[in-house]
């Protein structure tokens, strides 16, 4: 049996995300695929249900500002030390996106349910939060294993627990250090990327480099590798997380992020930034 090569161009990878898709993306420090985000915006994707695992920053703000997002499921959106995420804030206030506010472990739990192929996952805590009241898709049930007769009412110990529906993304999209030509992707210790890949119907990855050899051949690399069976497409994109930091490979482009935070406060300013961001992509981060 032969397998189609997962190696792809950025534009072909972006074309695999249809309008209206449920798209899972990682938090800023884990490796958002910013070059692929540029390709998505350029192709004019619309109506995304963006699932931030479990938060987002520049990536969500750009996609929202560019009109690509219908529904945002997240525990937070922030530019971190560069301040609030202005397009997210504006869209929520204007009511132009639907917001599904969550809490970090609830998003992880939903993905874990999906990777196990089960309909829901219970989670401690959270009860009493207004998040529960505003999430009709979340439920509170009694722990079916609580000891019967343990409370004053004699009808079983009161042990309410939150249950969260499985989150099954149409696609997971992230940036990783390297992949081999068989389609195996090395993520190192960033295990939430593994969970995202297991949970999603297909996983789209950009990498700093494509390497020779087989990442599954040695235990040391294999332990941090997503096997090719989960991977839909891989595109090589050096500096593919720019202007965000990418682990030990490169730091954040602080001047660029400060520019974004400043310009994106207004719609015309955002449009100006977006045009520059899309244009700069043609020459790569070093050019332009």
């Amino acid at each position, binding site marked *: 049996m032969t397998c189609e090569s997962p190696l792809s161009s950025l534009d072909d990878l972006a074309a695999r995300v249809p309008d209206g898709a449920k798209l899972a993306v990682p938090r800023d420090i884990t490796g958002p695929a910013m070059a692929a985000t540029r390709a998505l915006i350029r192709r004019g994707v619309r109506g995304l249900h963006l699932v931030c695992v479990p938060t987002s920053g520049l990536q969500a703000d750009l996609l929202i500002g560019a009109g690509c997002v219908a529904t945002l499921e997240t525990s937070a959106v922030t530019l971190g030390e560069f301040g609030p995420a202005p397009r997210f804030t504006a869209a*929520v206030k204007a009511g132009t996106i639907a917001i599904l506010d969550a809490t970090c472990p609830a998003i992880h739990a939903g993905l874990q349910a999906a990777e196990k192929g089960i309909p829901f996952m219970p989670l401690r*805590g959270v009860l009493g939060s*207004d998040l529960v009241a505003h999430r009709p898709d979340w439920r509170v049930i009694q722990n079916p294993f609580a000891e019967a007769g343990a409370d004053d009412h004699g009808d079983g110990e009161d042990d309410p627990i939150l249950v969260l529906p499985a989150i099954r993304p149409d696609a997971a999209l992230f940036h990783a250090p390297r992949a081999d030509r068989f389609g195996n992707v090395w993520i190192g210790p960033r*295990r939430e990327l593994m969970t995202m890949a297991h949970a999603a119907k297909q996983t789209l990855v950009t990498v700093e480099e494509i390497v020779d050899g087989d990442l599954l051949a040695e235990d040391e690399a294999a332990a941090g590798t997503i096997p090719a069976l989960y991977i839909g497409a891989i595109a090589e994109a050096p500096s593919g997380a720019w202007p965000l930091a990418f682990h030990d490979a490169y730091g954040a482009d602080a001047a660029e992020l400060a520019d974004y935070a400043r310009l994106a406060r207004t719609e015309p300013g955002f449009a100006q930034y977006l045009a520059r961001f899309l244009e700069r992509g043609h020459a790569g981060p070093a050019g332009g």
Partner: protein
Amino acid sequence: MDCRREELLIAAIARLLEGCRNVAVGALSPIPGTAAMLARARDPRVRVLGILRGNAFTDGGVELFDLAAQGRLDAFFLGGGQIDGRGNLNLVGTGDYPRSAVRWPGSFGSAFLYALVPRVILFREEHSRRVLVPEVDFISAAGPAPGPSSDDPRRRGGPHALLTDRALFGFDRTRGRFHLKSVHPGHDVEEVTANTGFDFDRPETVPETPLPDAETLALIRGPVAREIARTYPRFAERLFPEAGAAHS
């Protein structure tokens, strides 16, 4: 003694961490982070988790939450745009949800960790009536139901203390109310009351928050400053220029 405002807060937080083994610090929390490093400098058995550089996790972003649910995490820090007198926290926004008048980033892990970590230290530098409100507009993380705490995951969490720029409060779980523990040097009870939007208990005489002693200050400005500079270089450079922290 010449003590910076931040150093007083760092020393006060480190005292609140006494006896803790596993302490986690969230993103963008340089003062709690420095306090946790100070606690570790005094007691090498303290583990500081969650800070970007040198964190001990190998199971991804979920690991902090999993170990907190098990009861392995002793202390964590939370803040909020609004905090009310029952210990409810709002990290979402003001006005009517979802189209908030002022929208903040979101709840992060607060709804979960607040309920499951036995020693949650509320830290918010701004001590004003716009932050310390009678009732939050949105409950991101709920204050504990009145009653004693226990190891049971349904009764473990809630606020251990609330530290601001002006004062330190404790929280009485049985009564579901904050009480004033100390006021920082240069501030007084009247000022604290005038700037607090919720009702709280206060003893007859309110002590002053102690200044860090010379030994503590030397630790903060030396090895702790160099350590925190690995994660917060700009913070360390601004606050502890004497440590040469950013160049280490």
